[in-house]
């Protein structure tokens, strides 16, 4: 227990990220199922309007900040140092700090489900209820007087600190801790996409932080950043939010694209087609992601010129995305394709993501978007991108790397069941939403009248959602079963080309008994120009010193929710307690002996 609380080992932190994020994924999933139960038929009465608004807000917030991002982070942590031939990340204790801040931020946000009585709310749940996009001025104190939005504003700021700290850490790790010979253009694609993602994180999160700080000051200290009576405009929030929000979409999808670019070559036994193009298109997507934010605001009335410009930039970003898809298909072409579960999910990613990409083009066109934005058509779009895309990609990664992370093989039979159930479930759940939206059902409504004519389609969607639920339970069973009954994994069960497959599964605490020297982009594969590398010896030739754990990242992290609690309860002295805890943790951290 103590060793887990104080761990600074990137592999253990990766597993902590995985299990925590997976637990939040289940919570977000249950929220989704309650939403679908409510909408299964017109005039649903499963939950009240207030609870429904909390459910969809927390479903979005949870899935994005507490499930998908940290599930990616689990692979950044576990896999990236292995792929670049490093012993750990650049700042192991900062890494632990990121994890603890994430955990505490997630718990803080979710505590809002249970603490209503403490705020005399008249109901148990006082969860955030302004949507994951939290548009001002609805989120201002006069329109949202309860603690709901306070939880959201403070929780997201805490989570932002976690992401930023991890961002600095992984940028330095990838740039600075590469094994000898691992040039940038020899980095595995997943590591490349991680690097691009981290640059997006450290540039996008400060912008949302500023937006949240303004909202916090408006709610607690009487400023008027989003109040038009004072001369301000609530649209400032939308600009700040989407300046963050669109890069955030790529923060969510690029790691999954990186995973797919690892899985396809391994199971086609063929190098990634157009590696350079795939890498550069990823970088290009990262840059262009900054120039498209106003396509979330076509109905705001920015004027025809701004609408045209943002339509053009948005359509342009489809080009590098399309290029990736063609390169993936070309990777499979001429290969020897083994239909493992990981490959199923990676191919599923391509097939589903393209639907999301194409519907994306339809709302890149502002006049068409005026009919689609804020309807279920957009709900369909984001779920094809984030479920059909990101989650399929992440599952591909889980089936691919789970043997490396735990030393046990997941059941392929259960895996295929999981894939097909989830594939059918997601298409049943999300495809009808295109029509539901086009027939005029807005999103974020807790009830709809039968006259709308969308009852049957909604019922189908609900059935699909529950099918996804079953598939996830099946996956959970597979995980649990594998712990005891899974087949032992060899160093390299799949015939992978990258460094993580050259060491035992799970790797020893020092990762590499000898740091390898890299001479090619596919070090473990024999190609025309390069011989396959020799795997490091099973036992290190000389003892390797591994740094011990530290309590102080956890202590420092605890300071943040305490500070948030001070605002939540309007109690000044708690702020000082939080700051003191944070400073105490940081000072002990800075001055403790921690050698490599």
């Amino acid at each position, binding site marked *: 227990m103590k060793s887990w609380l104080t761990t600074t080992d990137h592999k253990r932190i990766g597993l902590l990220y995985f299990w925590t994020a997976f637990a939040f994924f289940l919570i977000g999933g249950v929220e989704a199922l309650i939403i679908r139960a409510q909408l299964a038929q017109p005039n649903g009465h499963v939950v009240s*309007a*207030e609870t429904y*608004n909390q459910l969809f807000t927390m479903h979005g917030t949870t899935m994005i900040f507490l499930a998908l991002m940290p599930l990616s982070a689990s692979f950044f942590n576990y896999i990236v140092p292995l792929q670049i031939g490093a012993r750990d990340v650049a700042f192991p204790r900062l890494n632990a700090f990121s994890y603890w801040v994430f955990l505490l931020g997630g718990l803080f946000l979710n505590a809002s489900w249970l603490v209503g009585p403490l705020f005399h709310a008249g109901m148990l749940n006082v969860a955030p209820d302004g*949507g994951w996009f939290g*548009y001002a*001025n*609805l989120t201002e104190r006069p*329109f*949202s007087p309860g603690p709901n939005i306070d939880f959201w504003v403070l929780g997201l700021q805490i989570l932002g600190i976690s992401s930023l700290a991890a961002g600095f850490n992984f940028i330095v790790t990838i740039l600075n801790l590469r094994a000898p010979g691992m040039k940038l253009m020899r980095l595995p694609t997943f590591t490349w996409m991680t690097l691009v993602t981290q640059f997006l994180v450290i540039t996008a999160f400060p912008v949302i932080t500023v937006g949240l700080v303004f909202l916090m000051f408006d709610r607690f200290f009487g400023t008027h950043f989003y109040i038009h009576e004072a001369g301000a405009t609530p*649209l400032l929030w939308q600009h700040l939010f989407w300046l963050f929000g669109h890069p955030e979409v790529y923060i969510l999808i690029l790691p999954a694209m990186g995973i797919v670019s690892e899985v396809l070559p391994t199971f086609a036994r*063929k190098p990634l*087609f*157009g*590696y*350079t*193009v795939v890498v550069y298109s990823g970088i290009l997507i990262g840059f262009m992601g900054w120039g498209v934010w106003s396509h979330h605001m076509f*109905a705001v*009335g920015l004027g*025809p010129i701004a609408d*045209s410009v943002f*339509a053009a930039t948005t*359509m342009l970003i489809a*080009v590098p995305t399309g*290029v990736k898809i*063609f390169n993936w*298909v070309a990777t*499979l072409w*001429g*290969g*020897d*394709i083994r*239909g493992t579960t990981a490959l199923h999910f990676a*191919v599923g990613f*391509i*097939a589903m993501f393209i*639907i999301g990409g*194409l519907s994306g*083009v*339809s709302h890149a*066109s*502002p*006049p*068409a978007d*005026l*009919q*689609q934005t*804020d*309807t279920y058509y957009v709900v369909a779009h984001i779920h094809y991108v984030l479920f059909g895309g990101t989650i399929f990609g992440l599952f591909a990664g889980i089936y691919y790397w789970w043997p490396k992370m735990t030393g046990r093989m997941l059941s392929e039979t259960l895996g295929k069941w999981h894939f097909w159930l989830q594939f059918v479930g997601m298409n049943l759940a999300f495809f009808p939403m295109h*029509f539901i939206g*086009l*027939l*005029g059902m807005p*999103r974020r409504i*807790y*009830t709809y009248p039968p*006259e*709308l*004519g969308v009852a*049957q389609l909604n019922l189908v969607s609900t059935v699909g959602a529950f099918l996804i639920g079953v598939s996830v339970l099946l996956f959970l069973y597979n995980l649990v079963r594998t712990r005891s009954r899974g087949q032992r994994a060899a160093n390299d069960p799949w015939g992978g080309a990258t460094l993580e497959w050259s060491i035992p599964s799970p790797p020893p605490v020092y990762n590499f008994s000898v740091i390898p020297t890299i001479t090619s982009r596919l070090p473990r*594969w024999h190609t025309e120009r390069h011989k396959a590398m020799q795997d490091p010896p099973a036992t290190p030739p000389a003892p390797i010193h591994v740094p011990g754990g530290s309590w102080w990242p956890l202590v420092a992290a605890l300071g943040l929710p305490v500070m948030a609690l001070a605002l939540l309860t309007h109690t000044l002295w708690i702020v000082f307690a939080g700051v003191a805890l944070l400073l105490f943790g940081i000072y002990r951290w800075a001055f403790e002996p921690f050698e490599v």
Partner: protein
Amino acid sequence: MLLLSHPVPPPRPFRLRLLTTLLAISGCAGPYPQSTLHPHSDFARATDVLFADIVWWAAVVFVLVDVMLLVTLVRFRHRPDRPAPKPTHGHTIMEIAWTLAPAVILVFVAVPTVRTIFATAGGAPADALKVQVIGHQWWWEFKYTDLALTTANELHIPAGKPVRLAITSADVIHSFWIPPLGGKRDAIPGKTNYIAFRADSTGDYSGQCAEFCGTSHANMRLRVIVESDSEFGAWAQNQLASPVVPPKASLAEQGKAIFSRSACIGCHTIQGVSPGTIGPNLTHVGSRATLASGLFPNDSAHLASWIADAPAMKAGAIMTRMKPPLTDADIAALVAYLQSLK
């Protein structure tokens, strides 16, 4: 006003029928009062044409890529006798080709897009009927600028005539949307957005708020009644008339007295009776078909329960229960009075 408008709707070309046909096949026959796929104005038709174009391009790309993917998966599936694959690393000409191909398709989407953006930007001829639309939590206020006329939740407009809506909000951000008549525009406090359109034919269309605006966002609906010129003229004239004065000693007169001495007057306007502006104008409330922004039919039973306890019928409704509560007799009198205000 749109340059591409037609006074009479043209027959729907085949390419526009794809989605509606799919719907029919799936067993969903309609009618769809809030459908974007059944346009009834020049604005809605322009977006529909554009969307149909995009759907066709998307369908072509989707089929091409997925067929390619499936063929690859089947043709190159693992076989024990398959020799080791050739380690191809890339192909410059192919990379250029599949960079250019989507770019060219996007040009075909972008050009009509920009044309439609400018055509639907909200400009209208000077003689257009001008209406100010004000979003409130959770109902719609309509002020006919040139007619000095105010009503709520049911917008009457003449068919075939240009209409220009100036959209804003009294509290939080809403979004005004009647799908069969055109795309939505946000109602933003401190800002005015415009949409303009010409409805094809008479009919009764529904719409609702599309931007999440709080507890009862789902219940912020509206109706648009498109009428012939003469019907619209008659409606407007009736709305401009002074409110009905209930006959002496009638139940309605009692209702008027109760209305005048209770909290009602703080929020509602009845011309010559009360000046409130927080809630809907009730001068001609009896002439409206629905209550509570399109949620219920405007009949005695619903009106009575609405007056007694609005939040029980519409979550979060700002009109709370009266303190001390109204008696049943009071409510019956109020209902009689309000219903008399045709």
